[in-house]
């Protein structure tokens, strides 16, 4: 290195470390946490059965699944892109696992690995097309969503796999402490791995930089194209995990698990990361935020069902609750900010 310490000016600016409670309280993580606590307490008081083991179990399972779906989408949102084919890839990944277990007779770990690999490969195909054609990932994945799903239905004849190994199904049905689904732990593991990736590894930081400003990243010497392909592949692999998790809840692997073309996953996939503070323009990521966002959505969904609002009106109530919560959070963050500036 050219600049030696001795050549440095004596007066060094003070290097204040970031963080501290002030920063944390202002971030929307704190807001989400608060909203979660408020809603959980409210529902526990108002809706009988909300805290029953069976509901907590069901809640933990939904959080696990939708959390992983959201995390999967997050990995491409950071590139400033998106992946409409996420659901299709998730289903394809799960179907590969089903095939490997039931038709090829592979042992469970090998089958899961194969599924992960298949999801990653399909994601990588998206990434490669995006990078090579420079089309927006919206158009690319719109098309591949149709292609992936179509090929899957073609190959499988739309028939699912329902003779999964008992041990795998038993894992899916496990009740930890009588009320927690192991799928929640799966999500925790995925979240931790992603947190590690983006926070503590070179390639994760490079992905973020490439997503934030591809031109600057490229001029800095980062292999932007390759990083984009990695991001899409990662999305596919995590999507496959989600596919397997949904299958575990269903007790079978079926092509319809994510709706037509896998499109049912799209809203939860975007909702959680965006609520959690991941910018759709790319380059920023909040794993914890995405997880808290999922918890938030699942809690109000479950709670409103528990309140037994008229069937068809439940969606309206959900929308209003979501809107009220984010607007209140917004007001709170604003108040915190102005207080900290005055103080």
């Amino acid at each position: 290195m050219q600049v030696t310490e001795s050549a440095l000016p004596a007066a060094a600016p003070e290097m204040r470390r970031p963080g501290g409670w002030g920063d944390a309280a202002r971030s929307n993580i704190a807001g989400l946490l608060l909203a979660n606590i408020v809603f959980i307490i409210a529902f526990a008081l108002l809706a009988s059965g909300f805290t029953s083991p069976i509901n907590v179990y069901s809640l933990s399972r939904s959080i696990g699944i939708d959390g992983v779906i959201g995390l999967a989408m997050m990995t491409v949102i950071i590139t400033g892109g998106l992946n409409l084919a996420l659901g299709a890839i998730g289903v394809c990944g799960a179907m590969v696992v089903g095939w490997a277990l039931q038709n090829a007779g592979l042992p469970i770990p090998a089958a899961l690995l194969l599924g992960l690999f298949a999801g990653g490969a399909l994601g990588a195909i998206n990434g490669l097309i995006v990078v090579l054609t420079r089309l927006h990932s919206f158009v690319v994945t719109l098309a591949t969503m149709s292609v992936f799903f179509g090929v899957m239905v073609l190959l499988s004849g739309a028939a699912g796999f329902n003779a999964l190994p008992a041990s795998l199904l038993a894992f899916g049905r496990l009740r930890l402490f009588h009320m927690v689904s192991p799928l929640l732990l799966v999500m925790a593991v995925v979240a931790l791995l992603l947190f590690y990736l983006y926070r503590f590894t070179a390639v994760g930081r490079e992905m973020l930089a490439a997503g934030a400003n591809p031109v600057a990243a490229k001029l800095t010497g980062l292999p932007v194209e390759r990083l984009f392909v990695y991001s899409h592949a990662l999305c596919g692999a995590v999507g496959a995990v989600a596919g397997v998790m949904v299958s575990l809840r269903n007790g079978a692997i079926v092509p319809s698990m994510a709706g037509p073309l896998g499109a049912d996953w799209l809203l939860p996939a975007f909702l959680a990361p965006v609520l959690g503070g991941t910018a759709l323009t790319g380059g920023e990521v909040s794993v914890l935020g995405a997880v808290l966002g999922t918890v938030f959505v699942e809690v109000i969904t479950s709670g409103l069902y528990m309140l037994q609002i008229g069937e068809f009106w439940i969606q309206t109530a959900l929308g209003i609750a979501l809107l009220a919560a984010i607007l209140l959070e917004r007001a709170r963050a604003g108040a915190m900010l102005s207080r900290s500036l005055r103080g």
Partner: protein
Amino acid sequence: MSRLRNLLRADWLGLLLLVLGGSAALAVVRPEFLTPYNIDVILVSFCLTVVYALGQGVIIAIGHMNLALGAIGCLVAIAFGGAMEVWHLPIWLAAVFGLLLGTICGFINGWLTWRSGLTSFIITLATLSIFKGTALGITQAQPFYRIPDAVKAFGSVRWGPLPAMLLLALPIVIATGIFLARMIPGRQMLAYGGNPNAAELSGISRARVVLLAHTLSGVLAAVAGMMTVARLQNATPAIGDEWLIASFAAPVIGGAVLTGGHLSVVGTCLGVLVVALINQALVMLAVDPFYVQVLLGLLILGAVGLNRLREARLGTTAPVRLS
């Protein structure tokens, strides 16, 4: 001379060539393609789609999104149907009521986005739930069937290959085109979409732009919803369910940038036509149902890819992209 050059550089020229080439090829393979009834079918599909695609387009222009587009269309459709069936309103009054409702819904989206400063994604996702839930709650998932014959006729009548709905869709397309290309508020929307900071520094009011775009989007969704009622001859709460992806696809295929600042109305129309044509081809060529999805995807990718190739040749891509 420079006009010709501009035309050659237009990002939708490739799509135009594709539409023309594809139609010609289809007409050769299947002469029935050129029958008036068949052209009518494509144009009907075009009319229904292009209106809500532009409804999304004006939002994309300012760099926002409107996930509630289909829900607004749905709510307006059943309000329109319900107003006529339950309240026995005359058609014009029901239509005005529908338009008003769409305007209000769009305005609510805009107002919430503007006041909260949150991304329109979240806001419209929440209002999507609210609007759709209300539509389902009112109807209990049952369609309104008693649509007056005049409304049904509007969705069915055609003169040769030209459907009556063109009378509504075409003026809307042209008006939107002029609005964005030449009118001051339209230009301000595009300026804001291109660079919100710069636009605000130039005195363009964020509130105005955001409210205008979202309200416009609500109005267009309302029109599309009521047109769909006329076509389907009933007002079912399933209207609008498939709008979300399609409404983004057409403008984006037509060259719009999701980050805002650019929307080609001609491109959007061609985007709608390309997809309609591909769907038509898949039906006409009697493709095995199991292959339809695969081919649909590949054809879309192929069409957009070809267009992109032409752009790359001409070097019309934005220079900010490296190399």
